[in-house]
């Protein structure tokens, strides 16, 4: 009896693994194959026209967005996490409120952020549809994510490192910046990498804030399309040709994310090692 149960459990595990792998590779393969079939060199280097919906500008916009958003969100949320974990007293009211706010924000659908961003940054601050509006909005979306993960990373730094540092007469500031943050760096980096994924994938909020003008942005106050937005609009408006372009864009997205992950894990490994050696 026991044998049958354990045997069937084992097969169930195998089947689950196979199904998951199949669907993952199936999707990847389907998009990549369709994307490659839609490939024409002009799609990358060419100027965007209705007959040649090139995506070069969109790759550029996406890259700019990643850098700018992280520049805004990462320092803010990392320092906030440092405050919450290292400085705030345990029973501090403010901390309870900040925690509650971040947790709530993390659960809100991105389109709500988009609406807020469009009104606050776009209208009130007069940034209109622009890269700046988009970046600020996505940055706010990322705050709770990075704060939470950085907090976890900092909390997982063993207290004995802190004790060791204080025991040598080091101040709190020195302990945090020389011991705690370097030890938490791998965790923080992985939080940042994850948020890069969120920036690339974000669509709904960006349609309201970044807008959807198909152009190379001349400045941070210009509207443009990120790859994901471009995909959405091509699929919606472009008919069967548009779908082809969307597949191609999807393939590019996959490649970009793949490269980014490889790069990030290389960087993460290097940072971790540098600190340890």
């Amino acid at each position, binding site marked *: 009896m026991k044998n049958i149960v354990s045997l069937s459990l084992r097969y169930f595990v195998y089947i689950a693994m196979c199904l998951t792998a199949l669907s993952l590779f199936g999707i990847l393969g389907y998009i990549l194959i369709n994307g490659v079939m839609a490939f024409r060199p002009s799609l990358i280097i060419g100027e965007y026209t209705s007959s040649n919906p090139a995506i070069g500008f969109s790759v550029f916009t996406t890259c700019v967005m990643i850098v700018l958003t992280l520049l805004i969100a990462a320092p803010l949320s990392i320092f906030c996490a440092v405050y919450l974990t290292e400085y705030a007293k345990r029973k501090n009211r403010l901390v309870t409120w900040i925690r509650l706010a971040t947790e709530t924000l993390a659960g809100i659908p991105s389109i709500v952020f988009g609406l807020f961003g469009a009104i606050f940054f776009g209208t009130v601050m007069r940034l209109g549809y622009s890269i700046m509006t988009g970046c600020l909005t996505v940055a706010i979306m990322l705050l709770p994510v990075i704060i939470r993960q950085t907090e976890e990373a900092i909390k997982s730094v063993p207290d004995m490192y802190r004790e060791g540092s204080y025991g*040598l007469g*080091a101040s709190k500031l020195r302990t945090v910046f020389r011991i705690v943050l370097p030890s938490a760096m791998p965790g923080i980096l992985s939080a940042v990498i994850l948020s890069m994924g969120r920036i690339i994938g974000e669509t709904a909020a960006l349609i309201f804030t970044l807008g959807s003008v198909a152009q190379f942005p001349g400045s941070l106050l210009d509207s443009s399309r990120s790859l994901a937005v471009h995909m959405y609009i091509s699929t919606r408006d472009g008919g069967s040709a548009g779908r082809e372009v969307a597949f191609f864009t999807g393939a590019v997205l996959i490649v970009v994310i793949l490269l980014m992950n490889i790069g990030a894990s290389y960087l993460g490994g290097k940072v971790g090692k540098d600190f340890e050696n």
Partner: protein
Amino acid sequence: MKIKVEDMNLYYDTFQALINVNLDVVENEITAFIGPSGCGKSTLLKSLNRMNDLVESCRITGKILFDGEDIYGKKMNVNVLRKRMGMVFQKPNPFPMSVYDNIAYGPRTHGIKKKRELDRIVEESLKNAAIWDELKDRLKKSALAISGGQQQRLCIARALAVKPEVILLDEPTSALDPISTTKIEDLLTELKDRYTIVIVTHNMGQAARISDKTAFFLHGEIVEFGKTIELFSRPKDKKTEDYITGRFG
């Protein structure tokens, strides 16, 4: 008298962890704190260099005098106090960086930046901790890659690098194998000529082997304090006798 504890009480919220403690630590002696878990011995040790400040609910009355100065007084700079009283912990806790950087962390903290000066301090500290020969070729290697016993001696070297007057050790060998333990015990008896040492230990043999004075703690109070030889041969208090002969409980 290097350290003098006077009528000290310590509370965590409403729980009183130390009750009316009086204790004199003499210069260039090893003073051992023994007692069952939760008896307050580690708590007293951590009060000596104010590591208890890190515990929010901790409150202290009475006095601890270090070279005659009240360490809880307004004029006392905690960072300077901790520099003068080095601490070594139960689990070896080298920072996740190189051996060299571990030792240099303290001196750098206190403003020494010159490479030559740091090199000299690193070598001297490792030599004083009797681990230079084992580590001199691995200074740039991660401190986490060396053995537990070496890590603990590295931690002692790290404490020595800031030129302390007192070394506080909180069960420094409880996580180590017997050979590493012996090495650390030998090291401590050597260091005693230049430093004042206070050690918390669960190992009564260790207290008997290396310490000059022993304090027996029970339920937050010092039951008996005196010369180690006397305490381990003719304890005055029945509770002490029961504890050291293993008939406690």
